[in-house]
């Protein structure tokens, strides 16, 4: 075969200060294939793609597009070379229409009208060709995330991209939306487009790619045909050792009810009702997993339980009622009553990124007498405690004088989890336990959560990762639009059923084929009211 690769990178290296983000990377992506790039956080995937898209300049190495050596000094050059990028965080103007967003930056001439007319025509053609149906006159802010992602893909195609790079595209999608995305990608492949899919989800790699390259610590460790590999093998290549993909746990022995929530309602600052009467129970020695697409009230549920938000309704902890008005209680008093909280967003809430590790380990518990000596804080005691926690949770680097921002995502999460779990709480609230955490650390964090449950504590876990919900939970509740859609036991349900419930479809519609549902999803799921 003599076809030139769509993209070939030779000897790409890039360092940020002393950190070698990419080291002598070689990769060949053949045209008309879906090529997966998989690796842990910090493995260098995003750096590599940023070099390909002209955001960074490589220290060394060459890029060949369609067999021709090409310099990509900026993103304009990348677009000119036929490369399109769909970012993890969409780069759309919220109050522009789909059409305006597609044309933005690719207007021809000073007058907008001809470009818009041209774009409208092209959009109709693309929609017919690739099942990329989007209403060109809809405002972005009115579209669900799945639809917004389609707009990003359309933007790239409008710019005549032959090579499409998608960075963690399924992070915000329901399983059904993800399936639909994959069908779109397969359609694009059939038309001869080349697709690079960056992800850390093994399942997606196995499902949709032709070839997969594994990155670890800035290096390309392997490139294999997807058909000739297995998730276990890929995980091992990513982490560098054997990994347990499933959590080992004994059956739960639930005890008395620890947390009882009755008709909980939360209205946000804009007056939108985020929780519309949520009721649930968590018992001692069990993990209740809350599944749902991001933005359906799970965050608000955790925040109101953790004392960060106010609400109405009735919540009891070990039979005693908790004040929800915020007048008599805040996050501090919740902690004092035995509620530990690992927040969903550790950068925004869980850590002070510019504080040292030891300062973060006292965060929220800084009134604890063991960290204080009279008027002053006993920083030595806090540091000793931090060192013990760092050792027990294997936080790296094992240095309590590092600022939190210098730790990787997984190690930051370990710091937060060490802080909260070591309080031995009656109830653990934990949101997205392993978001942005590498596989090796995921295994460890899951073990810690199960250990807490086995010690007879109640755990309320919110996660958008269905795999995680299914493997960790003893009971699963699905949230949609501020309500609990229903509860399931993990061994009596599957991803498909949960996925439908996450999209707001109750079990009466069990026989509806996924495709039909998916076709309607874009307009309903995650759409802002």
């Amino acid at each position, binding site marked *: 075969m003599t076809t030139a690769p769509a993209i070939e990178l030779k000897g790409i290296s890039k360092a940020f200060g002393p950190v070698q983000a990419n080291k002598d990377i070689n990769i060949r992506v053949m045209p008309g294939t879906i090529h997966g790039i998989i690796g842990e956080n910090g493995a*260098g995937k995003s750096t590599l793609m940023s070099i390909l898209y002209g955001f960074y300049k490589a220290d060394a190495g060459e890029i060949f597009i369609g067999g021709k050596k090409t310099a990509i000094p900026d993103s304009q050059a990348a677009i000119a070379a036929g490369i399109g990028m769909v970012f993890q965080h969409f780069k759309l103007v919220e109050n522009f229409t789909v059409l305006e967003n597609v044309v933005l930056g690719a207007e021809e001439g000073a007058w907008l009208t001809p470009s818009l007319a041209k774009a409208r025509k092209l959009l109709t053609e693309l929609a017919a060709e690739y099942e990329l149906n989007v209403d060109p006159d809809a405002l972005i802010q009115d579209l669900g995330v799945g639809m917004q992602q389609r707009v990003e893909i359309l933007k790239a195609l409008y710019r005549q991209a032959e090579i499409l790079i998608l960075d963690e595209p399924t992070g915000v999608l329901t399983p059904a939306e993800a399936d639909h995305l994959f069908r779109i990608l397969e359609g694009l492949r059939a038309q001869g487009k080349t697709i690079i899919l960056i992800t850390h989800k093994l399942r997606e790699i196995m499902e949709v790619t032709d070839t997969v390259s594994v990155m670890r610590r800035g290096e390309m460790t392997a490139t294999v045909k997807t058909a000739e590999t297995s998730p276990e093998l890929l995980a091992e290549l990513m982490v560098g050792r054997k990994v347990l993909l499933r959590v080992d746990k004994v059956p739960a022995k639930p005890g008395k009810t620890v947390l009882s929530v009755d008709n909980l309602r939360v209205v946000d600052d804009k007056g939108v009702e985020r929780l519309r009467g949520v009721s649930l129970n968590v018992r001692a020695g069990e993990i209740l997993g809350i599944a749902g697409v991001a933005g359906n009230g799970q965050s608000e549920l955790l925040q109101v339980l953790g004392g960060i938000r106010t609400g109405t309704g009735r919540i009891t902890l070990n039979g005693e009622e908790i004040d929800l008005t915020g007048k008599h209680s805040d996050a501090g008093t919740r902690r004092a009553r035995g509620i530990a909280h690992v927040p969903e967003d550790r950068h925004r809430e869980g850590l002070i990124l510019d504080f040292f590790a030891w300062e973060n380990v006292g965060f929220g518990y800084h009134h604890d007498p063991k960290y204080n000596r009279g008027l002053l804080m006993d920083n030595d005691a806090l540091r000793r405690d931090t060192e013990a926690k760092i050792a027990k949770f294997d936080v790296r680097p094992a240095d309590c004088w590092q600022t939190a921002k210098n730790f990787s995502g997984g190690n930051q999460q370990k710091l937060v989890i060490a802080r909260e779990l070591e309080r031995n709480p009656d109830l653990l609230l934990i949101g997205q336990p392993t978001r942005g955490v590498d596989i090796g650390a995921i295994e460890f964090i899951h073990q810690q959560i199960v250990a807490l449950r086995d010690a007879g504590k109640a755990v309320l876990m919110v996660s958008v990762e269905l795999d995680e919900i299914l493997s960790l939970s003893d009971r699963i509740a699905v949230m949609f639009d501020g309500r609990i859609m229903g509860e399931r036991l993990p061994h009596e349900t599957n991803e498909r059923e949960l996925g439908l419930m996450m999209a707001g479809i109750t079990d009466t519609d069990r026989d509806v084929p996924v495709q039909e549902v998916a076709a309607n999803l874009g307009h309903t799921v995650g759409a802002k009211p």
Partner: protein
Amino acid sequence: MILPKWADVVLIPLINLFLALFVSGLVVLLIGEDPVNAMKIMVKGAVGSTYGWGYTLFYATNFIFTGLAVAVAFHARLFNIGGEGQAQLGALGVALVCLALPWPHWTLVLPFSILGGALFGAAWAAIPAYLQARRGSHIVITTIMFNYIAYALLVYLLLGALKAPGMAPESPRFPAGTFLPNARDVFDMLGINFARSPLNVSFVLALIACFLIWLMLWRTRLGYEIRAYGQSEPAAIYAGISPFRITMIVMLISGALAGLMGVNAVQGEAQRLLQDNVLGAGFVGIAVALMGRSHPVGVLIAAVLFGALYQGGAELEFETNVPREMVLVIQALVILFTGALDNMVRGPVEGAFLRLGRRPAPGAAAE
């Protein structure tokens, strides 16, 4: 962290200062004076004699208080630019204490004048703080408006209730028992000859304030909460820290510090309440806090530097044809280079450090 700490806190401010002085030299050259000579006069005037030191440190005392006031608020990410007004009110508080009784000795009055200055300054900061914490009125807007109200209030009082007999809008002179010992008196006791200057024991008070603020920020729960709140409000709420409480406490401390300037300026020097007791020190405090990176030690160093600029500038005006405004230009350049243009210097310095100290770290990787 790319730069070692010493480069961050010492080297970069020094380079900034040097650049500011260099550009100032060019400006001096432009108005037809000799920059080298001007620099000599300034340095000699500021630190070349005990007289120069006396004035330099007297000004520095004011700037330490107002600089600490801004720095403390910075740690909670509150931009208190109402130091002028808070210091004016502090001066009023000090004056009321001094005028209240025929005080027999300064040691008796000092605790009360400290209290008076701090309370009045804190009270003046409390209103903008409350408006910020409860109603979201931006503190930059409210504190600066309160500066004008403070000036109007003092004029009103000095033309009415507090006016001394005579033409000038000022209060009667304080009783002699309130006068603070100045540097000349203190050094005389030690047998050292120190020229007459307004430098007084308030300087020691300022040093103590630096230490206490350092202790508060880095060794107490309150300081921990203030710094956490300043870094991230959502995280602070997550940790059970009340934004309302922190905003109020920080602004009260900040206002009290600004108010303490009155002890130095009014009780220590003027010995009466004037229309303007602050003379811009409230605004200089912003520059001092910026240059001192909101750290008490940095504030101390920056305050002494600005004190020297003030005193050296006065000498410059006295001995040459360089106008008073030129000194303001130099100060403005220092503020520009240390505050606004910090990143201009930082980039190249970081680059230089990377080239010098580059060492490959195998295995390290970043996204």
